[in-house]
């Protein structure tokens, strides 16, 4: 991409990035710096003072087995929710793109959950998955405790994954469908003339050409699932039962803002930040290669 630098007016280039750079410095790096500072101190919540404690906060969280289980759960959640949302969205997009009768209706109907506020979606799923009231009540009457996210941590995890993925299906669908429609019709038609069936064309032509979209979405989905799951968890399970759905971001929120342990929460957010940055860098490099060298 180095040979893309076409304009050599240096001052203009700089001037163009200044607005965003200033915003990001003020509203992102300055506060993040403050959080970093807290991670190495014991901070009194009401601002009465703080003392430097070195890596004590990090040692405390790394020695805490509950912290490690929140890391594992976050990873499970990230992978499961991303794959679920992207898998369903990709399937829907591929079949929707066949443009059979009713295409426009399907398209419209599959897109709108994207606009629903996370709290609203979470509330809806609380009803849907309630063991005694929702769709599972009939099953539960026959087999008690067949489904009970209030008692069973695995059920709770499944619930938040589905509630979270629900919204992201629509999000991914939009991008996949756009990606599919950006594929020149001529290519697909050429495949048809060569005698490739619908499914074969999906596999051999459309899917490979969707790779850049796929990786773009994977980056977004994974990072979002680390940080954006908060609203869903807060409304459906509050991290329970017995911490079964306490993902990293929820633990940070709880320890910091409910538990008033700012320093512990700051240390945790530094770890989360490093983790997500690491993942993204790996993926990003991979995406770059896919796009430019393949």
């Amino acid at each position, binding site marked *: 991409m180095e040979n*893309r*630098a*076409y*304009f*050599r007016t*240096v001052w*203009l*280039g*700089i001037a*163009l*990035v200044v607005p*965003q*750079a200033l*915003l*990001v410095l*003020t*509203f*992102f790096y*300055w*506060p*993040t710096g*403050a*959080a970093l500072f807290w991670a190495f101190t014991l901070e009194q919540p009401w601002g009465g003072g703080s003392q430097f404690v070195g890596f004590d906060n990090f040692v405390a969280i790394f020695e805490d087995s509950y912290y490690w289980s929140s890391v594992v759960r976050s990873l499970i959640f990230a992978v499961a929710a991303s794959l679920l949302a992207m898998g*369903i969205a990709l*399937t*829907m997009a591929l*079949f929707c793109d066949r443009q059979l009768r009713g295409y426009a209706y*399907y398209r419209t*109907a*599959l*897109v709108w959950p994207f*606009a*629903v*506020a996370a*709290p*609203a979606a979470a*509330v809806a799923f609380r*009803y*849907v998955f*309630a063991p*005694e009231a*929702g769709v599972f009540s009939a099953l539960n009457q026959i087999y008690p405790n067949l489904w009970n996210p209030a008692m069973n941590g695995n059920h709770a995890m499944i619930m938040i994954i589905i509630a979270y993925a629900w919204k992201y*299906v629509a999000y991914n669908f939009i991008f996949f469908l*756009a990606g599919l*429609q*950006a594929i020149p019709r001529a290519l697909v*038609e050429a495949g048809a003339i060569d005698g490739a*069936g619908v*499914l074969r064309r999906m596999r051999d032509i459309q899917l490979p050409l969707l790779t850049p979209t796929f990786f773009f979405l994977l980056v977004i989905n994974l*990072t979002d699932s680390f*940080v954006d799951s908060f609203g869903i968890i807060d409304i459906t399970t509050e991290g329970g039962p017995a911490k079964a759905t306490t993902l990293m*971001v929820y633990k940070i929120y709880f320890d910091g*803002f409910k538990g008033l342990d*700012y320093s512990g*929460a700051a240390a945790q*957010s530094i770890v989360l930040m490093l983790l*997500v*940055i690491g993942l*993204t860098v790996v993926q*990003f490099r991979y995406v770059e290669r896919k796009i430019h060298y393949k």
Partner: protein
Amino acid sequence: MIERTPILNVATHLILVVGLAIAFVPMWLVFVAASLTIQEINTPPISLIPGNQLLVNLAEAWNRAGLGDKLLNSLFVAVMVASGKIFIASLTAFAIVFFRFPGRMLVFWMIFVTLMLPLEVRIVPTYAVAANALAPAQAVLEITGIAWLWRMLTGVELALEWNLLNSYTGLVLPLVATATGTFLFRQFYLTIPAEIVEAARMDGAGPLRFLRDMLIPLSKTNMAALFTIMFIYAWNQYLWPILVTTDRVNYGTAVMELKRLIPTAAATGGGTPDWNVAMAGCLIVMLPPLVVVALMQRYFVRGLIGADK
């Protein structure tokens, strides 16, 4: 393309109908809940057929949360966030892709990293910044000694202050300070064939004219897509608005009022579980983003298809 694949067509419809069910069932339940009385909603099993209280509950939610003003506030904030984002992101991406200047990649990574750290984990320090957005600038002046120099020269204490609490600026700016759009525009600009840029340069077009005459027209669909995304993102915010607006009467947004409609049954609080009203409020608050998606989608998707034909 006409192919005869009757079995596959049936399968296609089946798959898509399952998709529809996934999308609609949860929201149908919200709708039903919003149309029940408080007794009905607290009597399991949950009804699947709407009751007759929808209008009553809608009116109650509207009045209790003062949704009229709040919807206008939300609308303004969402439009400002979306427009501000498009403006800033397209400029930044333009500079990063089409210019070479020292620190170009540094700026790119600096902005890109912001994708990764949610507002939640740095909310308290961010709030402190909102209380005085010039605090970082002040600190820079102090550290570099400019503040000291100023005091020496003028005898006046240099104290920069710009309070963003309880203001539209405070609601909007921190939401604009992320990387979402920059990343999107950069990806798009990278796909612009070198020939187009070469051609523009041959014609003697400067960078700004290239931006205006070539890039912006080409980016229309991207801008529309970004507008939709950012509008909804901004509209659906609730943690940040709750913190930055303590003056809810004048600056409250719709979604934060929704959160207030949701009864929290803390052990010592124990509000009335009037979920029917909360659900009705939910419907009202959900509606504007849905309208935007419905309106923008036509433009958005047709634009994409149109580019292909």
